[in-house]
């Protein structure tokens, strides 16, 4: 099922891109099509308890351990310019968080904030708000991952090229929610079940190209 959906989305994109190249097509003449594909990393930190259990029976001071995290991220925005400065569209991404791979689908907006002179570099703002799916994720036996809200505002620079395309680099923040649920274990005597609510809060740095 999830493969079919992914294929469908890819199909729709390739079709819209194909159509975009057809200058006679009225809609895309009025609202030019834009694709922005960016690759980057998310930076964050994790602080967790190391002596986690039995606290309710053997109270003890909580010990924390901190680790830094760097994870991979890939985003592609497909949309149209509704005016010369603003593009709206759909963003599909792939975000890895260790074992977990989430695929957020968001509504996105890109806006050129400041351009000092015609043809020069542009200060670009963007915002994506959506929901992350788990289509690319594989769960361990007995566990189930589910996605959640994703919000990603960024600010960055766009360096236009003569051919109409542009290079860009963006800095921003990403909040992503997911849940990781452990089904009750089979042991009738010492069973366990758990639910982990994950709020990933990361700084993102992305490099990409617009055409």
């Amino acid at each position, binding site marked *: 099922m999830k493969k079919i959906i992914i294929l469908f989305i890819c199909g729709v994109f390739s079709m819209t891109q194909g159509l975009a190249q057809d200058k006679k097509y009225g809609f895309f003449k009025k609202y030019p099509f834009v694709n922005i594909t960016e690759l980057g990393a998310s930076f964050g930190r994790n602080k967790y308890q190391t002596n986690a259990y039995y606290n*309710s029976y053997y109270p003890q001071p909580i010990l924390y351990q901190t680790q830094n995290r760097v994870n991979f991220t890939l985003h592609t925005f497909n949309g149209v310019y509704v005016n010369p400065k603003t593009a709206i569209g759909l963003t599909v991404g792939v975000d890895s968080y260790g074992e977990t791979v989430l695929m957020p689908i968001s509504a996105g907006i890109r806006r050129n904030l*400041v351009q000092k002179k015609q043809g020069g570099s542009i200060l670009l703002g963007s915002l994506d708000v959506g929901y992350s799916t788990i289509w690319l994720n594989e769960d361990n036996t007995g566990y189930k991952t589910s996605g959640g809200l994703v919000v990603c505002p960024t600010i960055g620079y766009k360096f236009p090229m003569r051919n109409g395309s542009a290079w860009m680099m963006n800095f921003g923040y990403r909040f992503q929610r997911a849940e990781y649920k*452990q089904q009750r274990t089979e042991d009738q005597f010492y069973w366990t079940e758990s639910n982990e*609510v994950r709020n990933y*809060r990361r700084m993102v740095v992305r490099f990409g190209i617009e055409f």
Partner: protein
Amino acid sequence: MFFDSFSLLIIMKNILLLLGCICLAIVNSACTDNCETTRTYRTTVPVTFTLAQIRSGIASEAPQDLKNPGKIYVKDNYIFVNEIKKGIHIIDNTNPQQPQNIAFLKIPGVIDMAVKENTLYADNYMDIVAFDITNPKAIKETGRVKDVFQNGLTDGISWYYNPQNQTVTDYEVKIITEKVRSNCGQNGNINPIYYYANDMAFKNGSVQSGSSGANSGAAGATGTGGSMARFTIYDNYLYTVSQSDLLLFNIKTLNQPTQLSKINLGWGIETIFPYKDKLFIGSNTGMYIFDNKNPEKPERLSIFQHARACDPVVVHNDIAYVTLRTGWCGTSPNQLDVVNVSNLTSPSLIKSYQMQQPAGLGIDFPNLFICESQYGLKSFDATSATNITLQQHIEKINAYDVIPLEGKHLLMVGKDGLYQYDTSNPKNMKQLSVIPVKREN
């Protein structure tokens, strides 16, 4: 033009300020993943008692609801239901259609019981205590044999006696819910739970259950226990089995039991079932047969070995019915073994029957009743040992332990309550009454 670039400068400054703020916020805690695991687990927590607490913890109290019933024992019109490690419920069953819960005898650590005439014998962790039950509402302790048992195992939880500290350490089952700040599943998974934090609560052994019109030394004098009982009375002797030993007590003076001897049997002993002048002792690897002609000195005749399993046994007319079940005791297939014990020195298997999750069983020949745990209660026609046929299957109840009684009537205990059935027609048993269990968790 000047104005334009000036306003542009202000915009730029504002944007840079904003950017700076975002960066600061990012550098700060805002970029720390926040993952919280809510984890619920069932575990055991140690509890320590002093001997004084255990010995003075006995009290005759007002009736209480059944919460976690264990073994059952029947004497005349009374049913004794063990509330595991808490005490004994005394139920007046003069009218099986309306049994009355009349009293509760609080005994710390009680698992087993046996009754002769007006004396009840029960375990009190390491001790054996005799009670005068002439008036069930005001039961009095009359005798005690101290420091008989060193350890015990019920419901998968063991306790042990520490003679040096004069304490007993037991374990309580707890369902714990904790919230923990976790590592978001990166760098290994969520921290494991160490169930045995500092426990010795072994996860094996017996489960409560029992069955069948077990013993009757001198008819009318003693009561009826289940096939899972660890206590039984024969003649003037009380037999008890611990994890590894057979212990004999002289109860000629009913209220003053004295210890006679101790016979080592090996590990994993679960039950004792007297049949004629023989003792059938169930361990989780086999069934021992002891000759009991001289009740002071039982002699081992043979052993019938089977796969490691929980194995209640009942015997009728030289045929032993053994149920084997996957569980804490082992992983054998779920089945009923019918064993020929006419030659006690070499018991032989007649036939095995497929079962679902058999626990206690009982025989009121030719009817065989088998508790199938969550699958309910089954009634079989056992006229022919080679062709045991199903007569009725009562589903949607949890059945652990069954005792067929005189007058075509049976007692069945499960997780939901104590049931009584009229078995005059074994193909269509009728429920007479039920005392429900009020479980806390």
